[in-house]
């Protein structure tokens, strides 16, 4: 088997960088750990949960999708190409890797998004099986697992009590990656560590059925009372893909930008005429839950949630998707009795 020592992570990154990969890895940044472009000297931290997901590198928070030279009211379109450097993302949690299938489906739903696809094609996902989970993790409730290989091109499995990783390739991209790593990845033997235990918080299939009949439930008011209506959950979410398109620039040049947006914001659905189909936070929270567990599943045959728990971890009001789902299930039981 192929193994890499835990203290060789920086060497691994350096070896891949030397082969032309842009390296993205979890790096400590003040009080948080984030996936960011690795540079020599950055210490890779594979233990903490990153505040951002791999989404940031496939569908960035803001990107140019159009460009126009302006001259008074007149304009001349200019060609825009996606920036898609050959990239490897190291240490992607299985939940984040699994979430890529959601983005793949949306951005190729009959209309192919050239920007997303170019980056996706140029990106190799080197996943990391989880040895630890926290109380917000719920991948096992949505069909995932802490050692799932879904969406990954290669996976690192912690071994020998965290001293090294077993490297398993899962695709051609993964094989190319290991080949590029050269001697840092070696043949050897190691005993895989136990993977994290993530308790199942709810039954997703039962939840979908429950949601289908509870659009009008008063629970939405209760569950959304704490929600303050920001976009922290959606922006941290590896599957949330809603966006806004805005033009901005000077009198001479304008760029058309695709910016992240969130169904939690009141303006998200506000019509030009003043009507808002989702006038309160209850309607917005309902949309968020419904979209992830019912609407998306109906349309694309998979859940739009990978159970990473970032939404709950980062919510300023401690609203938890898993808690909401569990509450919806509990309410059904109560109603039956």
């Amino acid at each position, binding site marked *: 088997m192929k193994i890499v020592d835990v203290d060789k992570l920086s060497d691994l990154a350096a070896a891949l960088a030397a082969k032309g990969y842009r390296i993205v890895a979890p790096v400590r940044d003040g009080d948080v750990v984030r996936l960011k472009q690795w540079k020599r000297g950055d210490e890779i931290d594979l233990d903490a949960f990153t*505040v951002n997901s791999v989404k940031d590198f496939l569908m960035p928070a803001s990107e140019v999708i159009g460009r126009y030279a302006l001259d008074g009211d007149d304009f001349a379109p200019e060609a825009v190409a996606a920036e898609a450097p050959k990239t490897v993302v190291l240490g992607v949690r299985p939940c984040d890797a699994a979430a890529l299938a959601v983005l793949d489906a949306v951005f190729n739903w009959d209309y192919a998004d050239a920007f997303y696809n170019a980056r996706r094609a140029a990106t190799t996902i080197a996943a990391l099986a989880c040895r630890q989970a926290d109380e917000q993790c719920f991948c096992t409730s949505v069909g995932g697992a802490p050692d799932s290989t879904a969406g990954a091109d290669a996976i690192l499995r912690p071994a020998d009590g965290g001293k090294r990783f077993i490297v398993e390739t899962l695709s051609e991209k993964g094989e190319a990656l290991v080949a590029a790593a050269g001697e840092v990845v070696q043949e050897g033997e190691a005993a895989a560590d136990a993977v994290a235990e993530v308790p199942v918080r709810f039954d997703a299939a039962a939840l979908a059925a429950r949601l289908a009949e509870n659009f009008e439930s008063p629970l939405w*008011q209760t569950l959304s009372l704490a929600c*303050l209506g920001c976009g*922290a959950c959606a922006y941290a979410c590896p599957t949330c893909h809603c966006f806004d398109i805005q033009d901005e620039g000077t009198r001479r040049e304008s760029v058309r930008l695709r*910016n992240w947006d969130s169904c939690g*914001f009141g*303006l998200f659905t506000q019509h030009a005429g003043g009507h808002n189909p989702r006038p*309160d936070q209850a309607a917005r929270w309902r949309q968020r839950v419904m979209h992830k567990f019912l609407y998306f599943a109906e349309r694309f045959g998979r859940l739009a949630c990978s159970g990473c728990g970032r939404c709950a971890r980062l919510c300023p009001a401690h609203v938890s998707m898993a808690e909401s789902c569990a509450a919806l299930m509990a309410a059904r039981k109560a109603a039956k009795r």
Partner: protein
Amino acid sequence: MNALETLRADAARLLREGRAKVVIGYRTRGKERAPVFITDASGAGSLVYDAACRQNLAAYLRKPEVRARRPAAVVASPPVMRSLVLLAAESQIGEGDVVVLAVGPPGEGGGEGVYHGALTLAETARLLKEKYALLAPRPEVLDRIKSLAAMSAEERAAFWSEALAKCTRCYACRAACPACYCTVCIVEKNVPQWISTAARPHGNYAWNLIRAFHAAGRCTGCEACEAACPQGIPLMLLNVLVAEEAAEAFGIKAGYDLDAEPLIGSWSADDEEDFIR
């Protein structure tokens, strides 16, 4: 009864007697302290208060769903009390809309904390002036501001370039802040679009600076925005900088006086002008 038990008993009594339609407090969820909205006296036992309670619950008073449930009783530490006094001074809430379940800062009075009772806004303002007049920003924040001041302009620009590059424009800071109660925020106005909504440097800069400016003389130092920021941006550096200027140059400390005039929006003929030629 200890402080927490008294707080719970008061919350239950307010609900029972109809003096509050909802009690907004904190509950335990694992290591976290999540907000809880209690409408039945039997639920008061879930209330907790400790150092892990970082959210400013006064922010909920702008939510239409919560406004519909007034009078609301709010568990409030001194910075939150200041937010409530600020909201009253700015006519966002009135006496009778809110019952203040006033708790001392975590750790005050030994391990179990101090509970000052269910207070009116006037009593809250009095308590703040009598007992918590000297609330100050954390020394670490003041130290970092000092070290920024010692840097060159280029170094300061570089510091904020890096810090603000992390902003994703999720507006968690705005959502967590009780003073951010505008129904339409300046960043949402697009004719003209003054502040770019894109998570790119100049828009992030304008957004964060203008938010700090709009909180000038209004920020009560609760740190909820910084705690809310998923990206760990040191927002309190900007807020404290402004608050210190407001205090030193104009003698204004937000959230102590129910009749306070706003810092921006009032003036005096003697205001400093040594920077004007």
